[in-house]
Structure formats: structure tokens, C-alpha cells
């Protein structure tokens, strides 16, 4: 660490002469080091330098398991379509390679475009760089399909960062969740890129029996050469999709066939551990839970929102079970957590401290309503396959209102008691 510190001190630019360069340097410097300014004794206490950046770093750490599994699952789904290496651990090198080839460009584009806009606005405003994009930038790749065209991604991120955050005054001022705004933009502007059965399986022009994967230089050139050295299995452009493979997600199957049809295709342990098609980071529930618990226990995300959202989902799922008139209503309420993006949404999206309600009682209402509305959209609304993105954005619009009523109620109570 000392060597890194020395290096950073050596390249430190002049704050007054080159403000932009300095704020860029500072943002990387504070990534590694914290100032030691804490107070002792009487007065206002700074017990800990727990600033915005460290808060966000924890969320990013919480997402790492989902990233690792996401990379693996991109490859795994690809090979399930080909009917090769259908065991989870078989052909691991190919699966990881394919996952990296798909995920890395998405990640790089997200970070470059998003942070680029942050840099532009910071220099326009003449302020230091706010690294508010770290968490959004870590979440956005996780909620995209693996084959998303990069130019669509770039436009969506521009929309979300500029119109969703910077016009409101930057980090901490936005009303709607930035990551979800990026996704909803793709969802409404380029629906073919993000809905349907085919987009969740990467590496094919279309999903049909006999279609060969579209391998590029990275597959057959770079990685095949490396695998050749080690004597591992290699990518073969001659493979083709097996008969009967559809790539439909559990929710798409449940829409027509109900829960029985889903269990014929995917076992419940598949759905739990996440070896099913879906957005990159939403599939593996135990790993998301691991990261989610980390941010809940460290107090970065509020447990009230998560718990009340779980109650909302369970309750409305239970009511739908009792009712049971459409195929989607037959999904047992506890399996609603196994499919789709419910876990990712209630642990990482709904708990965003900026866009959620900020009063304690408001958080209970906010989380519960997310659970209920998300289930309504998922089960009742035929127009959308999944509801969490829309439910959270919907409740984001009402979070300030909930706070307003709760605060004015408190004020009235205080006035009365005096």
C-alpha cells in the first residue's frame, strides 16, 4: 500500500492549475485511501470517514457474486442452447470465455459513457467529480440482456444519466433510480432488444434449431489459441442449436402454461441457483442474497424496505393463489422469489437511499407498495413480462409524497401535544 500511496503522491496534479485533472486524480485516489480526519473529544464527532464513495463501494462489493455467476451463466445458457457441455461444470473454460466476451464490452461501455457524462457535467459545473455513477454503473450491466447492442446501451445510459440525474442537480438529487431509467428507456424505445424469448440467450442471430453460433475473432482466434496451449476444449463454429430449445424464461412459460409447465422445463433448484435464462445478474438468488445481506447488515440499504417488499410480494402472491383464474396466478407465492428479477429488485434497486422514502414509516409503505404493484404488473398486466422495474419507478414518483404526508403528520402531532 505504501508504494501505491507514494505513486499517487508523485503524480498528484496541481489543484489550481488543472482542476479537471485534479478531480479525476482525486476520484481515483480516494478509491484506495481515506483521509484520517476524525475528531476526538467534545464537539461534533466524525467517528468514521464513511463517505458516499465507501457506501457505494460496499454495494459494488455486494454485487460481485452476481457478476461472477452472471459471466458463467451467459456461457452456460449459450451451451445449453447448443446442447454441448450441459453439465454445469463441464466446459467451464468456454463458458467463462464466452461470458467475458459478452459482459466485458457491456461493462466497459456502461462505465465509459456514464462516467464520461459525470466528468463532462462536473467540469461544466466547476465542481469535483461525484462518483454517483459507480453503483448505477455496476447495476446497469446486471439488468441488461447479454446480447444488448452497445449503441442502444450507450443511448440509454446517456438518457438515464443526463435526463435522470444531472438535470436534477447530480448525485443524490435524482428522483428516479438511474439504473432502472436506463433499462426502461431500452424497454420502451427498443423493445425488441430487451423482450421476448430470444434476447436472453447470447451469441446467436436467432433462436431456431440448426442455427450456428456467430463466433468472432475473440472466440475462434484469441481464446481458441489460448485453450490450445492448455489442451482444453475449444469453440467450434460448426455447433448448432439443438431441436426443441426455445430459451423461454420461466415467466414466459408460466404466462401460457402456468406453474406446471414451468416445472417441466426447469427444476426448482435450477431456478433457485440461477441456471436459467434471464438478465445477466438476476438469476442466482442465493448469491444475490449474499450480497444483499452484506448491504443490509452494514446499514447501507434499509432492511425496512426489503422486509416490507417481501411481505408485499408474499401477501399478493398468496391472494393470487387463492384466486387462481389465469395461468400466472397458479405460481405458488413462495416461487415468485425464484423467478424473474424479484430478489435483485428488492435488495438492490428498491433500497436505493436516494430515491426511496426517507422516513421510517414511509419506508414500510414504500416497500410494501413496490411488492404489491410489482406483483400486479407481473401477474395481472398482460403487456409486460416482469414488473419490478416499473413498480419501483412508479413508487419512486410517490416517495416524496409519502414523506410529505408523514412529516406533516409528525408536525401536527407535535403541535397538538404542546
Amino acid at each position, binding site marked *: 500500500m505504501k508504494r501505491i500511496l507514494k505513486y499517487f503522491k508523485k503524480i498528484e496534479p496541481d489543484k489550481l492549475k488543472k482542476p479537471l485533472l485534479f478531480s479525476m486524480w482525486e476520484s481515483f485516489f480516494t478509491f484506495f485511501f481515506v483521509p484520517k480526519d476524525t475528531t476526538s473529544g467534545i464537539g461534533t464527532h466524525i467517528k468514521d470517514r464513511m463517505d458516499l464513495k465507501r457506501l457505494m463501494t460496499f454495494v459494488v462489493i455486494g454485487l460481485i457474486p452476481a457478476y461472477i455467476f452472471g459471466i458463467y451463466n451467459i456461457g452456460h445458457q449459450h451451451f445449453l442452447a447448443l446442447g454441448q457441455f450441459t453439465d454445469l461444470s463441464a466446459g467451464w473454460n468456454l463458458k467463462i470465455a464466452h461470458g467475458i466476451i459478452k459482459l466485458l464490452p457491456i461493462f466497459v461501455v456502461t462505465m465509459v459513457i456514464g462516467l464520461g457524462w459525470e466528468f463532462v457535467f462536473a467540469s461544466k459545473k466547476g465542481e469535483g467529480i461525484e462518483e454517483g455513477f459507480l453503483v448505477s454503473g455496476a447495476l446497469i450491466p446486471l439488468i441488461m440482456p447479454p446480447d444488448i447492442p452497445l449503441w442502444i446501451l450507450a443511448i440509454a445510459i446517456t438518457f438515464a444519466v443526463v435526463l435522470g440525474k444531472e438535470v436534477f442537480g447530480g448525485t443524490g438529487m435524482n*428522483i*428516479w433510480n438511474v439504473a432502472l431509467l436506463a433499462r426502461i428507456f431500452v424497454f420502451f424505445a427498443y423493445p425488441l432488444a430487451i423482450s421476448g424469448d430470444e434476447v436472453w440467450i447470447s451469441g446467436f442471430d436467432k433462436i431456431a434449431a440448426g442455427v450456428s453460433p456467430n463466433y468472432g475473432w475473440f472466440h475462434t482466434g484469441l481464446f481458441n489459441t489460448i485453450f490450445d496451449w492448455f489442451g482444453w476444449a475449444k469453440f467450434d463454429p460448426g455447433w448448432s442449436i439443438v431441436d426443441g430449445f426455445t430459451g423461454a424464461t420461466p415467466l414466459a412459460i408460466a404466462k401460457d402454461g402456468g406453474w406446471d409447465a414451468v416445472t417441466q422445463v426447469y427444476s426448482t433448484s435450477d431456478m433457485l441457483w440461477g441456471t436459467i435464462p434471464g438478465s445477466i445478474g438476476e438469476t442466482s438468488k442465493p448469491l444475490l442474497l449474499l450480497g444483499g445481506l452484506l448491504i443490509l447488515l452494514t446499514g447501507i440499504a434499509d432492511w425496512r424496505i426489503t422486509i416490507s417488499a417481501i411481505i408485499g410480494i408474499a401477501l399478493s402472491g398468496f391472494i393470487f393463489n387463492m384466486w387462481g383464474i*389465469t395461468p400466472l396466478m397458479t405460481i405458488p407465492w413462495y416461487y415468485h422469489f425464484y423467478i424473474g428479477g424479484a430478489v435483485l429488485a428488492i435488495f438492490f434497486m428498491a433500497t436505493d437511499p436516494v430515491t426511496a422514502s426517507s422516513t421510517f414509516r414511509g419506508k414500510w409503505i414504500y416497500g410494501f407498495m413496490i411488492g404489491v*404493484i410489482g406483483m400486479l404488473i407481473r401477474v395481472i398486466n398482460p403487456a409486460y413480462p416482469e414488473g419490478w*422495474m416499473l413498480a419501483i419507478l412508479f413508487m419512486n414518483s410517490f416517495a416524496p*409524497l409519502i414523506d410529505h404526508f408523514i412529516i406533516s403528520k409528525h408536525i401536527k402531532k407535535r403541535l397538538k401535544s404542546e
Partner: protein
Amino acid sequence: MEDFLNVFIKSAFVENLVLSYFLGMCSYLAVSKSVKTAMGLGLAVIFVLGITVPINWLINHYLLSEGGLLGMDLTFLRFILFIAVIASMVQLVEMVIEKMSPALYNSLGIFLPLITVNCAILGASLFMISREYNFSESVAFGLGGGFGWFLAIIAIAAIREKLKYSNIPAPLRGLGIAFIITGLMGMAFMGLMGIDPAIFFSGK
């Protein structure tokens, strides 16, 4: 009863007058600076809509249509009569608010009489005609549409109150950011679009 609730839910949430038809924007943008006045105006709009739509239904059904009391097709008089009904209702609301709550009356200012030309109100009456609602449905549509408008305006008012503390770029302060908020709210409300409330009333 089922039709009543069906139309109410649909007009309040699924087909929100502001956020999916973008009707009644001028007072929506102008009076949404604080939750309190927004609530006053929202309640006024619920009242006016809830009364004028059924009255206009009666007028249209019994006076203007060919099968009505006069026995002539007078539908070309629709606009003028509807506006007259709306204007008189707004006058009533104005008098009540001036008497009951002078503070609210002052803060609403010109926008209270301007409810008369709020396109959400006339729009609702015309929607009621074009969608061929019956009487109970038109009551539901009036109240539901008003409730949706009320919900939208208090939500944006709360957001704008929160934004008072934000460092919004100077050119966007005021109306500019209000338009952006409205657009993003419309996007968020799209989640409810496509829900058919009839499903809530279908048994097993």
C-alpha cells in the same frame, strides 16, 4: 357496480388524464409548486369532474341526442353546452373556496377560474361521449379521472417541493424541470398501462 369500479380504476390509474393523455397540463404545471395548493386544486378538479361529466351525460342523452326529449339531433350544440355547465360548476367551486378558505383561494389565484378551460375537464366529457359510457360509468369516469389528476398533481408537487433543495442547472429551473419530471412520471405510470381492471371482477 363492477362496471363502475372498472371504469374508476381505469380512468384513475391506467388511463390517467395527465400522464397518459397529457390533458390539463397548464394548471398541472403552474399550481404544482407546493403540495397544499396542489391538493386544493386537485380536490376542486375532482369535484368539478365528478359533477360535470354526469350532468353532461344527462344533457347529451336527454336533450341533445335524437332519441331525447326534444326529438332532434342537436349534438352540434355539445361543446357550447358542456362549456356552459363546466363554467357554472367552476363558479360554484370558486364561491365555496373563497368563502371557506381565503388562503387557498389566494394561492390558487387565476388558476381556479381557469379550470373552466382546463382541457382535462372538457376532455373527460368528450371521452365520455366517444366511449359511449352509460350514466353510472360516466359518474365513475368523472370521479376516477379527477382522482387520477389529483394523484398526479400532488405527486409532482411533492417532487417539486423536494427539488427546492437540489442544485438544478439554472436554465432548467422552474418549468423546464417540471416538464422533464412529467415526462419521467408518464414513463413510470406506463407500468399500469395495459392492465384490464375487468380481471379484478371476474370470478374463478
